[in-house]
């Protein structure tokens, strides 16, 4: 029965000349994305050893300085070392982005499976709710929910999960519709399998890979959204060194010193670009059918 499984899975090898990593490195964008990812992971793991200063250590005499040998990227408005704050910021970004994306995946999967598998009025209800959520521009939706929950790191993650969920639900629902009609599902059902077994053992494994590509593409969006919300003062709160907080504090003093805004902006651009390149390269390698469809 398994032989008729829908998605003819591309062979993914993890070692050797044709391994995924080697094939990624061969494309310039894949290489760049991989470098950014590895760089960020190293920063997350070894932040205290890599960062030259404690991110909270103030030095009011040397405030708002430009780059120098003692402070490579300069200092902020109370003399904290910008480089160290940006390095520790990676941890904050991941603490928001990872739960947000996984939460969106879980929520979207649940709704998409329910709508696609059960159909009928449940399907219609899910569609209407998704349409209503997506009737807001994502930023406005996030702002509104944050206004209710109050600004905090945890709430930003929740809000982003809700805002991203419809995207996953739609893709999951569409995939379930295709998979459901396959003969091996019908065969399984005629053998007396329960709904639970069909969904967990047959549908889920078939719809998960394309959704995981969506996760890779969503991570940079989550980081960008966190920074944006915190920039407005409605997300992560100071003194936590999230990139949005650094950007927001830098903006207040932008007339005196452009450095905090300049470096944080650059960090954000390189990070989102790296993840996007990586996501696109992965998608092209893993699932060529989707190429160009998820932009």
């Amino acid at each position: 029965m398994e032989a008729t499984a829908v998605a003819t899975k591309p062979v993914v090898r993890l070692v050797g000349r044709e391994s995924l990593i080697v094939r990624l490195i061969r494309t310039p964008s894949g290489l760049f994305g991989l470098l950014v990812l590895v760089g960020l992971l190293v920063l997350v793991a070894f932040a205290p050893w890599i960062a030259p200063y404690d991110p909270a250590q103030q030095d009011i005499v040397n405030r708002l300085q430009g780059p120098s040998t003692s402070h490579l990227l300069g200092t902020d408005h109370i003399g904290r070392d910008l480089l160290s704050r940006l390095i520790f910021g990676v941890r904050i970004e991941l603490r928001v982005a990872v739960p947000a994306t996984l939460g969106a995946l879980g929520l979207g999967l649940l709704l998409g499976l329910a709508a696609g598998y059960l159909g009928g009025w449940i399907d219609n209800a899910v569609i209407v709710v998704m349409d209503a959520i997506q009737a807001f521009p994502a930023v406005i939706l996030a702002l509104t929910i944050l206004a209710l929950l109050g600004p905090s790191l945890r709430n930003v993650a929740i809000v982003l999960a809700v805002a991203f969920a419809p995207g996953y639900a739609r893709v999951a629902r569409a995939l379930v519709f295709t998979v459901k009609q396959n003969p091996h599902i019908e065969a399984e059902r005629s053998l007396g399998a329960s709904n639970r077994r069909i969904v967990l053992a047959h549908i889920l494994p078939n719809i998960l890979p394309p959704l995981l590509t969506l996760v890779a593409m969503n991570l940079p969006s989550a980081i960008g959204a966190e920074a944006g919300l915190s920039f407005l003062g409605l997300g992560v709160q100071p003194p936590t060194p999230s990139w949005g907080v650094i950007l927001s504090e830098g903006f207040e003093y932008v007339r005196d010193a452009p450095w905090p805004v300049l470096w944080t902006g650059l960090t954000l651009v390189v990070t989102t670009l790296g993840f996007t390149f990586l996501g696109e390269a992965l998608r092209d390698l893993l699932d060529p059918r989707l190429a160009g469809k998820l932009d």
Partner: protein
Amino acid sequence: MAFLVALLLAVFLALIVHVVPGDPVTAILGERTTPELIRTVRDQMDLDKPVTTQVAGFVGHALRGDLGRDFISNEPVTSLIGNALPHTVVLAVSGLLLAIVIGVPLGVLAATRANGIVDRVTGIVSISLITMPAYVSGLYLLLLFSLTFKLFPAVGTGSFSDPLDYVRHLALPAVALSLGWIGYFARLVRASMLEVLNANYIRTAYAFGVRERVIFYKHALKNAIIPTVAVLGVGLGELMGGAVFVEAIFSRVGLGTLIVDSIELRNYTVLRGAVLTVALLFVLANLLADLSYRFLDPRIRVEEPAV
């Protein structure tokens, strides 16, 4: 469908005050409250009546164009929105126009030189622009053109009575908003152009000796532009979302600023009015894009609407 969504939104927004932990009135009024003020607010928000009455009241009033009164400035919410809305619409529309005027030719250029150097460079530039958040481009433009070279004003909106000054204030914010969509349109048009250029009627045009420029811009683009039109509605909505950041950076008057300010002041009456307005505009823009899409591509009318 659009109507149903709008109705659902209004109900959700009417319920907003009840989702907030604690008593909404004390949350709104904070420390500086008097029993008298509390009574006025409770009364105006119908908080002493059953929830269903409140929802019906808000939706009913909203349908008649009455969004309640702001307790802080004591002005009708509709007039606050009326003051802010035109600036945001002008900003979003000019951002969208810029994106079309620059992005579409860029896409055509890339498609006609597919896989050449120009194509690769525009490809990289497009992706970079797409991934760059509007607030980063806004901040960089501010740093470069307002603070370093003092070419454009850094703050303010200007007024419609002085169009030249208004445009000077509008320039940087509009560019900041449009950058991402320039990249997006460029990629979208490139992809659909490549598809269209393979069509038989294009080959026929070549065979007839039609000039290449005429083929690209007159015959091919006409069909290739359709997917772009389809995303215009979403584009306008997302641009209004991006406007929140750009308005904050350039201290512009607008719906975004109104929303952010009302969140900071916990001013839920203004907040829900403004959010409802944005959502309605978004639904409307999508509807218009959908209709014009059907008009541009008659083939769509015959097909069943995609579920």
